[in-house]
């Protein structure tokens, strides 16, 4: 008995030999196991793209919502909606935000989040042996795509906040003190952007089916042109623009990317026509399970109950009144009533003058209320902008508008009135801009056209800031524009500088003594 019991007990101990304490996860991948193959390289770049329109914490994405909160609500296009119950969103719509505004912080986080992903791809993909790739061009292509997105995000940051910390590699430490750096000058940030974009111009001009939506060389040229325009480097801007304007439509241009305006404006926001001839680069949305797209600006509509407000509302009737009745952009951009197929009735939401935004409603969805399934892409760059930039650059370089400058802006206007047939040809000149404008008047006309063309497309705040100070009033164009709206109560702040740069998020300053705040904050 004694022996048996001892054997039993010892057997009990032996059954459970010492467990290893080394962790070997089998349902998640650790960094050490990754960046070995072509598939790994492609996945790491897909993750870079994903930062454009998704948030790791399922918050609003950059494109589609968060950037719009800064550029739309922060400008004279939008005010707050009653449904903006978040005080930080409300504060952006009333120009009363402060340095600890959570949405400003979130936008900053998301931009750097994408930059970090791009840095990781740019650092790790070159280490994957070329033999791993099916095609020798893919490795370089993936790096260049990542560089474009890094440049795009830095371009947003430098315009929103001025000089920001320039981070080009993934951190290797978790120790906060070893990570603290200061702000890099605006010029150095722009140098990095230009260098990344120059590399990205070598990207393919088109992609085959499963790769449609990736960055093209043409997109890099346009973004580069936009960077030069922002810096008022008109000459370089012209060089870049000439490479993307389709040859044959304008004299002296060499573009072979086959971009053109889509003759039907509303198709630009119809998912059935996504990645069309006009879409130079878009943040890609699609309906699918594995990611949420329900925070797209398409919260423009969510219920047939007129008491339920969408997330964004036009500033006031003046925005609607910019358009004449035959401008197809008006009906694409706004709605005041909608047809409810379930009841067969048309629901009136507001008076036409107090319309709501319609651009990002996916009208292909049934029932229409299920906008969380919206597939509308967010156009980051469209060909209409190429033409308007071209008009602007020619006007600045030549001391006034040239014939091509007129042609460029008039093409955009003709298309808006369904009078554009393609390849630079308008079928009528009915809505052409008055000829013989001075340089200043033409400039105003271009900015006015940009406003009408790009409502809700994350442009307006940047445009107002880019124009600088209005010599007539001594104020910045941004402040003047905001002051016209009674809802923008905070725009009367005494420090004029303040409103042309968003603050560095307060938490970032609190954590890092090397960071300085923007003037006026």
């Amino acid at each position, binding site marked *: *008995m*004694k022996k048996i*019991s*001892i054997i039993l*007990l010892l057997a*009990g*101990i032996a*059954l*459970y030999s*010492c*467990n290893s304490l*080394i*962790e070997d*996860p*089998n*349902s998640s*991948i*650790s*960094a050490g196991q990754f960046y070995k193959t072509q598939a790994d390289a*492609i*996945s790491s770049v*897909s993750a870079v793209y*994903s930062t454009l329109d998704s948030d*790791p914490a399922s*918050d609003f994405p950059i494109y589609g919502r968060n950037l719009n909160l800064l550029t739309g609500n922060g400008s004279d296009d939008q005010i707050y909606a*009653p449904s903006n119950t978040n005080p930080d969103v409300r*504060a952006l719509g009333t120009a*009363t935000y*402060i340095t*600890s505004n959570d949405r400003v*912080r979130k936008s900053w986080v998301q931009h*750097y989040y994408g*930059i970090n992903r791009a840095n990781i791809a740019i650092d790790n993909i070159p280490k994957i042996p070329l033999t791993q790739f099916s095609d020798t061009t893919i490795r370089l292509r993936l790096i260049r795509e990542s560089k474009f997105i890094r440049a795009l995000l830095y371009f947003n940051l430098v315009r929103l906040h001025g000089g920001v*910390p320039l981070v080009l590699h*993934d*951190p290797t430490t*978790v120790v*906060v003190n070893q990570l603290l*750096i200061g702000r890099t000058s605006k010029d150095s940030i722009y140098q990095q952007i230009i260098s990344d974009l120059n590399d990205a111009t070598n990207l393919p001009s088109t992609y085959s089916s*499963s790769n*449609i939506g990736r960055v093209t060389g043409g997109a890099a040229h346009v973004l580069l042109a936009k960077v030069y325009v922002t810096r008022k480097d008109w000459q370089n801007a012209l060089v870049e623009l000439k490479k993307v304007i389709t040859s044959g439509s304008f004299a002296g241009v060499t573009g072979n990317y086959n971009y053109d305006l889509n003759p039907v404006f509303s198709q630009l926001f119809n998912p059935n026509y996504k*990645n069309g001839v006009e879409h130079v680069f878009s943040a890609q*949305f*699609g309906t*699918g*399970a*594995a990611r949420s797209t329900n925070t797209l600006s398409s919260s423009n509509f969510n219920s047939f*109950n007129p*008491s339920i407000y969408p997330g964004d509302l036009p500033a006031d009737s003046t925005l609607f009144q910019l358009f004449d009745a035959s401008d197809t952009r008006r009906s694409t951009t706004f709605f005041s009533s909608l047809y409810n197929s379930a009841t067969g009735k048309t629901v009136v939401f*507001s*008076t036409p*003058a107090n319309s709501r935004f319609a651009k990002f409603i996916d009208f292909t969805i049934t*029932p229409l*209320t299920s906008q969380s*399934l919206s597939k509308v892409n967010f156009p980051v760059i469209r060909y209409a902008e190429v033409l308007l930039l071209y008009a602007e650059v020619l006007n600045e370089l030549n001391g006034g508008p040239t014939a091509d400058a007129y042609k460029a802006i008039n093409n955009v206007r003709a298309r808006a009135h369904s009078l554009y047939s393609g390849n630079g040809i308008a079928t009528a000149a009915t809505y052409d801009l008055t000829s013989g404008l001075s340089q200043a008047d033409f400039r105003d006309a271009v900015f006015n056209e940009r406003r009408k063309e790009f409502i809700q497309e994350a442009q307006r705040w940047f445009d107002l800031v880019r124009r600088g100070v209005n010599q007539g009033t001594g104020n910045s164009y941004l402040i003047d524009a905001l002051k016209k709206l009674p809802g923008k109560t905070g725009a009367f702040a005494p420090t004029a500088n303040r409103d042309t740069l968003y603050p560095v998020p307060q*938490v*970032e300053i*609190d*954590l*890092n003594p090397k960071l300085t705040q923007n003037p006026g904050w």
Partner: protein
Amino acid sequence: MAKLPLFFGNYKKFPGFHVRKISVLFLLTVFTFLSSFGQQVEISGKVLEESSKATVIGATIKVKQKGPQTGTVSDAKGDFRLNVKSLPVTIVISSIGYKNQEIDVYEADPITIYLIEDQNRLSSVVVVGYGTQKRSDITGSVSTVSPGLLAQPSASFDNLLQGSVSGVVTTQSSNAPGSTASIRIRGGNSVNFGNDPLYVIDGFLVYNNNDNVNTGAGSGITVNALSTINPSDIESIDILKDASATAIYGARGANGVVIISTKKGKKGVNQVNYNGYYGTQRAAKKVQLLNASQWDQLQNDIYASVPVASRVGLNYFTDAQIAADAAGYDWQNAALKTGSVQNHDISISGGDEKSRYLISGNYFDQKGVVVSSDFQRYSGRINYERDVSKKFKVSTNAFGSRSTENKLTGSGYNSLNFNGAFPSLLLTSPRTPVYNTDGSYNTSTNSYLSTTTNPLQDIISTKNNTYLTRVLANVSGEYKIIPDLTLKVSGGTDISITKQNYYAPSYTNAGNSVSGSASVGMTQVNSWLNENTLTYDHDFNDKHFLNVLVGYTTQYQGGESVLANAQLFPNDISTYNNLASGTAQPLASSSFTSTTNSYLARINYSYKHKYNVTVSERADGASVLGANKKWGYFPSVGLSWNVNKEGFFKPFEKTISDLKIRLSAGQTGNSNVPPYSSLQSLGTSNYYFNNTLVTGLAPSQLENKNLGWETTTQFDAGIDLSLLNNKINLVLDGYYKKTTDLLLNVPLPLYTGYQSALENVGSVQNKGLELTVNTENIKTKNFSWRSTIVWATNANKILSLGKGVSNYFPLAPTGQVSPVIVAVGQPVGTFWGYSTNGLLTAEDIANGYPLLTGVSQTVGDQKYLTTSSAHKTITTVDKHYLGSAQPSFTGSFSNTFTYKQVDLTFFFQGSYGNKIFNLLQQQLELTKQTSNASASLLDRYSATNPNGTLPRATNAPVAQVIDRYIEDGSYLRLKNLTLSYSVPTKLISRIHARQLKVYVTGQNLLTITKYSGTDPEANFYTGDNTKQGIDFGVYPSSKTYLVGVSITL
């Protein structure tokens, strides 16, 4: 009352005064005394349990005398016979769990002895980590939950701990059937990870992680893993609080240890026990809302606040409509019903010379007070023990249970959205009929419904259920190598298998836009534990008592889960049972493993049970920590001194029966982070190219090889005092705890692309006092009154959050700002917001009183206070400390009155000084066109009510965290009131029953509180330490009335 008095003489043992039978016994005693002189005399009697009047089997009856002991034990009927040399004689009756009694016997007549439950006496044995110890020798702070509290009807034992033991704060966060309670022993040590105590069930270590029984399918409050255990199986619960007691559990001891021992069979005849109860439940309090005509008027006020041009589509009601609407429709009432609760337990137990066994079965069923919420449990247990030889003993404890829970959908603590099924009813306009005239649900396109579906129908037709199967079993063998040296080897496993199903039909809000939404999830977590200990127990010359324990243990936990979702179903017939008929949605599967290896050692030494020392050390290695910091070492030392055993104490013996002083210090740890937290792991984030989904992968967290233990250092000083022959027992403890190297998500500079990294920084302290007083207030022949007072205070404070960080705001619900702050110098769970001072007047506006930025403020809007006169507007810098969810003190007061066969017990429990953020009220005071609002809005400012105290109605209200919603959460609650009657043994002996008791119980009958919400215990984010005391619309609490019967054959 069991002591028989001597009418004359100078007997040494003549304790106190007694009233029993004095006059009757006078002559009898004289007679007996004389007649029995010089002969063998047989004395006989019966041993009964005092409160239940049940027979006590196996009680030891000994004659108190020098030299060889003579004695016997009570038999199956509680009877005993004992031959003694002569009368009078003093006999000692003892039985584990009861106070020893000494009785002077003068006559040969049968006597009845009532044994009293021993709650605190130093002579009793207490379960401690890896063994038992005489209470007199203990150096640590160990409290035993009173058996009376354990006998209360309850779905889950965690709910029974409320108010049971000083220093244990239990909050019943949700009242939904089967839901969980949050338990904190001596305050929360950790900010982010793991504040729950360790449970040791029959020696098996269980860290209750409700995530292990949740698959992600469906929604609603978390399933409570502890509810799988049948409370009736529990014999005792001991709670280890200080480091001397808990350090033997090392890395898992920091939050205290709850030791649960289940019932075992006893030597004697087979015994059958049945206990059953049935009761009804009703919602204790309703949320006060506007009725239809009041709501109409609110709509008109909103309408009036909007500029004329923007009024298109807004609600407006004529006076005739307002009058016609009257009270309207009460959506809350439509979902409330009378609930029920019933429980049936049956057990068979017994034992012979070599084996003891207990087999039990249980059925519990609760139907909630809200439609579509219920909980059922079937469970069974086998406990068996056999002495294979004099040296070798084997035993097993095994239980299995299957529970089913139907839940309301909506947010659980880990969801941040205000989308709960019950709140959706509160928000529905009272102008909208619940039903159509034909009795079907009203789903018309009524613009006052905030959704296009009927919220009541949503609740009733949505399936959201959980099936939880759990098996917890262990076997152990003990071998006495030499008489004092025992080797114990045990192995056990804890397996839980959860299946969750969810289906929202196409006509519900959740299923509407996607033509039906289904998900099915399954998760299986198994844990096994092997413990090997060697115990040496010896007393040297009855002076030096030594107990040495060494051991090695290893525990493994592994889990696997799958989750499948589908939408777009052609019909609602097969619900979640045929996902293939819909369109597949994201699939998920995952697995984890974690391991803990430990070495432990403890020495208990006592000199004559007078001076006691405990020294322990445990080394723990945890796989979840960083490569460089896997191992942690947790020492402790405890000292105690039984002052009453000193010679100089003799003079005080009559007043002070026991006096013990305890001191202890030690360290314990916490490593309760998810597996793989220290690795740089990749997360998926997907994108579309050409409308086709592609998978993206990128690092989601930084590697931290130095991720290590949270360490809690604790000092404790205590006094155990018994007065007046144990009529008053008092335990007082003071402690100081400091937790360092907190596992915190340290904010990184955001430009790194990471928001935070998990590091060991910062510290938190807890200090407090605990008092337990048990008293026997009155004790006569037929009547007794006993009371227990439990009182505790704990002050929690964050000492540091790491270099350069003074505070941070935890994640806020979507669309809102965080109402809480985690700040150095403040307790965890601190509310942060604006102070207000009534409403803005025309005068204020004229004087340029600072206005809130971001909204346009005018007369009748909330008037906010600045924190500095320099502020010309109100911005977020004017937010400040508004109170803490931490109570100043908690306590309970329980009383038991016994009159003959009738017992009456009542149990009050409460909390004082804690604040609650009434988030539900904040949401219900938002004036909206689409939802109902709180009845408090009747007092809003308006043209017709210029003296209103609440802000005017607008169409664009922004929810702010203001002082008005931070309410006093103090309460005193009559948790339990029970009246029971034990049928006299004479009557029930005819049906061969040993005990028969019937009782009626009322639970939660009375709550005294200033809190305006439905339940002052509301704690929406149960498991989240930083968001305590937030009432975001919890399941209604209920009053319960039940009747029960307990019978032993």
